[in-house]
């Protein structure tokens, strides 16, 4: 199992953008070692550089997903010697884990079939034939659901029972199945209408009962279930994109060491690990989730209250002091206390104006608590503000591109530069934007990092990148001067942009390697 994975790791260097070639895998396996070497050596040089923290993946289309299912069904069909429809139902029940299915099936075929909602093998006529067999001796029939009567002849053609024998009229079946598919979004788990019967309604009768629109929806739902069942597949989360990412190198247990950022064919990034619809490198999924929750929670409101208000030491009413002296009288319970030390006012005597009661136990506990929560709030806000600042900048990306575009046109006309010569500006903007996304997440990371030497190195890298981005950003904001100035600006921007790229690579590379080397310690 593991050797297979590694082999794949070594072999698959092809461009992710290339279409799926169903023969690729088998071709790769059948070629001899010498040939393989020949094929590999050029590809090994070609890709930019494959980092140990990058993952191999492929972008799949819906058609490919369907082919994958067919392939899997065919395999199980021939292994277990069951009809395709049965194999598909079994696979769906076992969440497409064919190893587990085979184990259970060989162990006890009847149990495997029955638990998946199929007829036991002892009744071959129904297990292979999901459609209602005509009644042995047709007789008049009343549908228990709509209470309509059917004559002998109608019973054979207008009613239907699955292998379990629960017979209902076609009209009711259709209404039921359509409801399950269109309003409940069910697909592979639609059961017989009889209460308590767990027999599954399979694809064949469903396709026959419903219109082609509903049937299409049903098969779409089946495909969706296939994708969500397979740990190596994930839908592209970007609106309107119908691609699926396949990646077998980022299983759940690896997500503490890997940030499997992938790029879909639609051009957008996503995290294969958690489905976040953009790159969140260099932070691992677990920390991103914590951060998002923290930012969304109003737990911070509570922190604000704690930092900016005090509670009456007697009745616990929350008080925000907005002026006046330190001799507080609680409006609610009339308790008198000192705002500074939180001790009872009666203990102050005449020395209240100095509040020299620093060591009194009653007050110091209250103060400690407050200081702590104020500090924690400040710490959070420090990181949050920087995170949010980059988040905000990213929202202005479109404007940034637009203003740069204008400058590029200006340069083309005033300095008589060619289109290709002014591309440096756009490339610089690309660099800035990519670096800002990384910087943004680096603040989330820093918030959760334990203070130690490694963290200091991380923050040094972060600072260097931050500074480089600022400088480049400033240069890009400059107004266009005369021809000489433009040439100078171009030189500057090109250099700075290369520097940002370098700092970006260093931060990213070091941080992602750090996970593999277990260098990062988080406080949570």
């Amino acid at each position: 199992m593991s050797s297979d994975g590694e082999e794949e790791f070594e072999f698959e260097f092809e461009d992710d953008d290339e279409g799926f070639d169903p023969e690729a895998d088998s071709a790769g396996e059948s070629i001899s070692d010498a040939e393989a070497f020949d094929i590999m050596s050029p590809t090994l040089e070609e890709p930019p550089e494959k980092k140990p923290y990058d993952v191999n993946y492929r972008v799949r289309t819906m058609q490919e997903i369907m082919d994958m299912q067919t392939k899997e069904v065919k395999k199980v069909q021939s292994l277990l010697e069951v009809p395709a429809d049965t194999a598909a139902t079994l696979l769906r029940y076992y969440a497409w884990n064919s190893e587990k299915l085979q184990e259970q099936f060989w162990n006890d075929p009847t149990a495997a079939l029955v638990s998946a909602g199929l007829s036991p093998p002892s009744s071959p006529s129904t297990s292979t034939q999901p459609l209602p067999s005509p009644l042995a001796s047709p007789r008049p029939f009343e549908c228990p659901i709509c209470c309509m009567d059917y004559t002998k002849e109608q019973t054979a053609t207008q009613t239907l029972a699955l292998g379990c024998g629960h017979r209902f009229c076609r009209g009711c079946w259709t209404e039921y199945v359509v409801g399950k598919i269109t309003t409940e979004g069910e697909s592979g788990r639609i059961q017989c209408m009889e209460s308590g019967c767990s027999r599954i309604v399979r694809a064949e009768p469903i396709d026959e009962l419903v219109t082609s629109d509903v049937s299409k929806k049903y098969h779409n739902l089946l495909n969706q279930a296939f994708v969500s069942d397979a740990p190596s597949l994930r839908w592209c989360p970007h609106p309107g994109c119908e691609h699926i990412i396949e990646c077998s190198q980022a299983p759940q247990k690896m997500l503490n060491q890997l940030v499997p950022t992938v790029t879909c064919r639609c051009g957008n990034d996503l995290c294969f690990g958690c489905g976040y619809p953009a790159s969140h490198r260099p932070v691992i999924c677990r920390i991103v989730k914590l951060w998002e929750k923290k930012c969304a929670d109003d737990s911070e409101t509570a922190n604000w209250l704690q930092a900016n208000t005090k509670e009456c030491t007697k009745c616990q009413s929350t008080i925000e002091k907005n002026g006046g002296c330190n001799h507080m009288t609680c409006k609610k319970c009339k308790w008198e206390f000192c705002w500074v030390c939180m001790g009872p006012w009666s203990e102050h005597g005449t020395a209240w104006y100095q509040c020299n009661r620093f060591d009194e136990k009653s007050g110091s506990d209250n103060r400690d608590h407050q200081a702590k929560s104020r500090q924690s709030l400040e710490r959070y806000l420090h990181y949050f503000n920087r995170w949010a600042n980059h988040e905000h900048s990213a929202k202005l990306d479109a404007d940034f591109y637009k203003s740069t575009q204008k400058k590029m046109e200006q340069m083309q006309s005033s300095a008589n530069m060619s289109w290709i010569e002014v591309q440096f500006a756009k490339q610089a903007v690309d660099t800035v934007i990519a670096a800002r996304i990384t910087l943004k997440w680096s603040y989330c990371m820093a918030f959760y990092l334990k203070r130690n030497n490694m963290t200091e190195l991380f923050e040094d890298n972060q600072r260097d990148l931050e500074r480089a981005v600022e400088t480049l950003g400033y240069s890009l904001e400059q107004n266009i001067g005369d021809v000489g100035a433009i040439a100078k600006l171009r030189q500057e921007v090109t250099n700075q942009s290369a520097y940002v790229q370098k700092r970006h690579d260093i931060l990213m590379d070091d941080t992602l390697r750090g996970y593999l080397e277990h260098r990062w310690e988080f406080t949570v």
Partner: protein
Amino acid sequence: MSALPKRILKETERLMSDSPPGISAAPKDDNLRHFDVSVSGPGQSPYEGGIFKLELFLPEEYPMNPPKVRFLTKIYHPNIDKLGRICLDILKDKWSPALQIRTVLLSIQALLGAPNPDDPLANDVAQHWKENEKAAIEQAREWTRMYAQ
């Protein structure tokens, strides 16, 4: 409102002529999909001796969708909340169009005989049930006396 489907007519007819023991259900005059129901508390339960009023409504999609049922009489039960809503699987995901008003009401009566505090709807009641079953049952008896008689 469109004409009543045959299924509903048949069910109503049977409910009126041959109602299960301790259960009665009759459609309202102005809306034949809206039933006045009364269920008597099962013997050996804290609801014994009580008559509980419920309302039952058959939505347009019935029997593909379950009927909507609600207690009108106040009741102290871990699976029934203050508004009379009932936590019962066959009224939700375990609904089957082959079930009927009759089977639903029988299930509700059975729920009175077998409260399930592990799947609570009324959290405070369920908590009470788990911490001090005896006292909770006494409370249920008390409410039965106060509201259902």
